[in-house]
């Protein structure tokens, strides 16, 4: 094979990927433009005009029109509050399933499996009715409740705990440590990677979640960013304030974009593990 042909064979796929990636980015680039360039200039002007008329006005306006600071706070409380609770529940449950023997283990294992088979989104109607009975509508605990037990996280941690050498644990046990201390001092320090993987998936998933919060939140004090954005979209449809819409879209999406740009590799791995179940 000639050297020239080899080179061609190497560069062609890269060029194809780059072009394809560029096309894929068009909607994102277009959103950036709508947010930073006034709509009239965007539609009538050239790229040079766009550069000259860059402004942050749409962000200021979006920030004014909808209570985004409050929506941010709500999203942060429910997403990170949930994560904190989940880290406890999945560590405890994963540990019990990985390292303890008890009656009914198979049945309990199957119960977790059921959650993997039946995603919560499908059960919105009965879960809503449960929240009504508990009086948890329009509350943070209502937002979190269906996700506090996480089969995905539990299985991920179970798998990780199984790989911890027995000697480590026995040493701690013979020093008189109880189970919680063993978990905390021996197991959790060596399973940071799966804990991180689970955290990335949990944060992205719930930061983006829409349907469940839409159904159960009804006040500014609980509504997350996604629901706030959808309300903004519905209201701006009338006036077609596209720059406002672009800015709102970015306000919601930027933290997640920054997160994956920073931890692209872990992100990739985490999402692979989320599928592997």
């Amino acid at each position, binding site marked *: 094979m000639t050297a020239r042909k080899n080179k061609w*064979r*190497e560069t062609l*796929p*890269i060029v194809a990927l780059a072009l*394809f*990636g560029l096309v*894929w*980015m068009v*909607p*994102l680039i*277009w959103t950036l433009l709508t947010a930073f360039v006034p*709509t009239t200039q965007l539609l009538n002007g050239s790229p040079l005009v766009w550069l000259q008329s860059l402004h942050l006005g749409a962000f200021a306006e979006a920030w004014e029109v909808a209570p985004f600071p409050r929506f941010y706070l709500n999203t942060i409380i429910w997403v990170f509050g949930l994560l904190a609770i989940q880290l*406890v*529940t*999945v560590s405890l*449950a994963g540990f019990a399933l990985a*390292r*303890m*023997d*008890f*009656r009914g283990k198979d049945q*309990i294992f199957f*119960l*977790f499996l*059921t*959650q993997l*088979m*039946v995603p919560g*989104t*499908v*059960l919105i*109607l*009965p879960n809503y009715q*449960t929240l009504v009975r508990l009086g948890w509508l329009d509350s943070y605990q209502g937002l979190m*409740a*269906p996700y*506090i*037990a996480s*089969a995905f996280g539990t299985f991920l941690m179970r798998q990780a705990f199984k790989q911890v050498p027995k000697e480590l644990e026995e040493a701690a*046990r013979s020093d008189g440590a109880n189970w919680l201390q063993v978990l905390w001092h021996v197991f959790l320090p060596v399973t940071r990677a799966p804990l991180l993987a689970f955290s990335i998936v949990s944060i992205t998933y719930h930061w*983006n979640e*829409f*349907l469940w919060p839409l*159904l159960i939140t009804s006040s500014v004090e609980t509504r997350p*960013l996604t629901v706030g*954005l*959808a309300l903004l979209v519905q209201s701006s449809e009338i006036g*077609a304030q*596209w720059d406002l*819409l672009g800015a709102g879209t*970015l306000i*919601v999406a930027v933290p*997640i*974009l920054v997160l*994956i*740009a920073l931890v*692209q590799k872990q*992100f990739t791995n985490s*999402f692979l593990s989320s*599928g592997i179940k």
Partner: protein
Amino acid sequence: MKQPESSQTNTGGRVQAARAPAFTINLSGRGPIAYLFLLPSLVFLALFTLWPIISVIWTSFHTRRGRSEVFVGLQNYERVLSDPISQQVIKNTIGYVTIGLILSVIGGLLLAILMNQGLRNIGFFRFPFLATIALPMVSVASIWLFLYSPRVGLFNEILGGLGLPRSNWLSDRELALPGLFMVYMWKQLGYFALFYLAALQSLPNDVLEAAILDGTAFWQKLRHIIWPLVSPTTYFVATIAVLNSLQQVDHIFVLTEGGPNNASNLSLYYVYQQGFKWFKTGIASAMTVFLLAVLLTMAMLQFVYLERRVHYE
């Protein structure tokens, strides 16, 4: 109460004991502690996974008359199957899921082959496809709302620039559902590609060499070498493609609300409409049970498939 339980585990759990002898020997009373560790998860699993399944099956056989629930047998199911709107919804959903499945597998594999090219620092090129996975569907849909906009949208600008007739994308009976589908694929294709990418990277290097684009030989290699080797991943991607397309409804809220005239209505959105807009919990529950049946069938198929392959832990 505690003692007999743990001693039973010792005699009955021989398989467990063989795997982890240390625990069965030196630790008594671990049963109750295990339940304590599992308790928080079990409570919420029972309340928000087990109970809703039972409850939705129950309500699917009932209808609300005044303040009480009346047993109506299979009436809700009959109505879901005979009503023209729900028929339309089922038809839409089957089409959406099927095309989604095919494109996720083919598109995902091709994209993964592209993403798997030799360069080490290729992360930059992968970013576009990863970014869309992580974006909120509501944001993604808002982005596309603008692209689809009849008067100022990018698509119509391009069509107009090419001298082609403009379309009213999302209000068109023919185009609304494909319009939703494009948004969904744009967001999710990278997700499916990731699984293929992982599969490709676990293949031996000389096989990967064969994957470099090279005219007709490429298709031969794809068909006869790569495709068979990644078939477990294909099975897996097919499963999550179905689950994903059934679950994603956020874009419907932002873009079409199921319209025009239910042309872009999908099963889960229909459940929302029936249950939360028109309070027909019986109908919504019957549709939910259909969805559950599909999901459980998928899970069974996957289980059978996994059992057939080498079982390992």
